[in-house]
């Protein structure tokens, strides 16, 4: 085989390895709160907000609220952004982030609206 093919194959393999490693790293599974507590990875937890638990600190610009996951376990979510405006109308909320020190630190809130065709994704 000529060196050109070897270089080509090496590049292709390197790319595949690069993609595969990062793909497995960035997979964010949907889990229950119990599993989120055990995991160190970024996970997604789906659930309902606890009505009236929202609190927005206008000075620190930190928004927090309580949520119950599908198994009924309650926990507090902290989000370093501003409350998504349609939170009250959401059927379901998906929080993406990590569980540390008794709090769920959300990197992203996905607010699912009653309409299936759209929902607001609030990005950090």
């Amino acid at each position, binding site marked *: 085989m000529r060196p050109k093919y070897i270089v080509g194959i090496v590049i292709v393999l390197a790319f595949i390895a*690069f993609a595969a490693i990062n793909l497995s790293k960035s997979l964010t599974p949907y889990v229950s709160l119990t599993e989120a507590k055990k995991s160190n990875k970024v996970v997604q937890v789906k659930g309902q907000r606890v009505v009236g638990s929202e609190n927005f600190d206008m000075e620190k610009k930190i928004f927090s609220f309580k949520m119950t996951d599908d198994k009924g376990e309650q926990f507090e979510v902290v989000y370093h952004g501003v409350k998504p405006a*349609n939170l009250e109308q959401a059927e379901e909320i998906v929080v993406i982030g990590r569980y540390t020190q008794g709090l769920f630190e959300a990197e992203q809130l996905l607010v699912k609206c009653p309409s*299936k065709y759209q929902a607001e994704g609030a990005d950090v």
Partner: protein
Amino acid sequence: MISGILALSIAFVATTVATAAYWLFYRDQDERYFHLANRSFALGSIGIVFAAILLYYNIFAHNFQLNYVYSYTSLQLSNYYLISTFWAGQEGTFLLWLVFGTLYTIVLIRSIARREPLVLFFVLLVQSFLLLILLKKSPFAMIWHTHADAPVGFTPADGASLNPLLQNPWMIIHPPVMFVGYSSTVVAFAMAMNAMIKKKFSDWVVQARPWVIFATLFLGTGIIMGGYWSYVTLGWGGYWAWDPVENASLVPWLFMAVLLHGLLIQIRQKGLVKTNLFLAGLGFISVLWGSFLTRSGVLADFSVHSFAESDLNLYLISFVALFSVIFLYFYLRSLKLTESPKFAEGIFSRETFILLGMMSILFTGLVVFVATSSPIYTGLFGEPSNVSMGFYNLVSIPVAVLMLLSMGFAPLLIWKVSELRDIKTLFLGIIVAGLLTVLGVVFGLTKPVSILLIFLSVFAVFINAYVGVKFLRKLPSKSGAYLSHVGVGLMIIGIITSSMYSESEKIILPAGEFQGSQFGYDLQFVNFEERADGKDRAKLIVKKEDGSYQADPQFYFSEYTKSYMLSPHVKIGLKKDIYISPISFQPGETAQHKQLELTKNQTQTLDDLKITFNRFVVGDHMDQSPMAVKADLTVVVGGMKEFNLQPALWMENGKLQGNDVTIPETNYQLHLESLDANDGKIVLAIHGGAPAENAPKDVLAVEVSEKPLISILWFGCIILISGITVSLVDRIRGR
């Protein structure tokens, strides 16, 4: 609606007959089959076109008995948006797909049907499948077929209307452009299948080329329009979120773009015979797979805008499986039958670099394909997982480096010979790219990855523009490729500056006060401006040193989504866009709310009002209910004028209801909140009057961000689209 279902049924039968007849004509070469096929196809297209017109007729006639019309339209929608409701639901998009498929079939019949009936066989096989889906999920279903509680013959007074997010001019044009692209990928697929069955592997390449350019053009244009729509209306600040629905359109586009280059190599160098067949199959199957992913509801938990879950899963998955199996069978058979001649002998030949670019785009397409499908295969082994946006962005970087290298070098090289002849242009390109990159660093480029990518992009843009301009002078019809590559390079520059160097700040704005921002300008939230269409806007003043401007992002409550809808204000500029997105609104207290408790004949004072409760009156002439009880009040305003008022309280549907009564010549309003007949006591709620001092003001929270040089991205998009258009026109003329 019987006539519509009948039209679709006839179309299905006729198209299926035509499909079979083209096959028989291929097998027996009997003219009668050919005529049968063409006539059946004509009947089928009449059915499809009739169905489409009928659906439009019902949409414009507001026939809400039709479930589709009820679900997506309303009396208030303007005619423009009524046009777009045609493709607001799945049934309509399949019908749209069929209409475009019919148009392509007509073109094919007029050009190659007699010589290549198998191409028609495959195109119409797909059409038959789409018709089958429409028979299962008909756009002509009546409301009582889909809603169990609606009686037969029921006509809703108004429709559910169109999602307000889709009530946007871009949403009139974006979906059809997208579907023109999707539906055209079948042609290259059918031609490749024809080639494999006939074991003639070179003719199809020339036939398919304009179709592949066509698909690339429309998919690309559609994707860009979708991105622009997302940027100017959704308010999250970006144009691309690697959402499954977006990815499902990106993947076929990338595959078509790779095939486009592969066909060029096969025509010029006779190489890549097997690769091209494979790419044609991959492109079409990725379209089918994409429709499955986004329409079947399997990703409902992972996408922010998938269509709702549907009962079409089985149909769609068998659609994908059937075509994949047919394709793979013939493809594997062909592998033994054909041998690609050697090509790309030297490293510095044009074909080597085109190959490098093809590999990088193909790789991106495959990775996005695999990553988007991740909830399906991870769900087989455990918790379904999806892939975060960060992954896609990360993987794009090395791919972009390779793609830019190949785009930059290819125009400097010649076919077949490995030799860098045009050293002068190469050095010129490196110098220009170097200087501009240094300039970029002076103006704030800091991240190494961005510096590398900017350097390579500028290099690729310069080389392609330099060579492209030469072509424009001599042979303008051949400048399409260079123009397109200039566009891609510019797009990458704009993507890097606007995403890696976008800065944003969340600002809390109490009404009326100016607040500073990190960008050096002050913002003031003035008030809300009510609009006739219900889409109220927050009025903001942005005060800059070089003049001020008014920004009016939308912020309104939508009855449709039962939630607040937000839409940003974008101040478009050459150097940067200023993007202001409302996030949250807290209404302040504009007026007092006070409660007064009164017993019979007691008088209480509030501001300059003296209110006396005289007695209860049991109302027998209240319209609302015979159960109404009124409180007879005497109100003295400012010690001067005396009024007699009777606020009422009554039971309605098991709940206490009261009415607001305005105190004449004031802006106070009274409301009977509760009463106790035994003790002769009432509680009055009074609101109005001047706001109390230090009362909380309205507060609007906004996110302000700057998107540096995003104009280059949109400019690059226009150049890219123009470039592909030039190539398409050239290919069509060259036939």
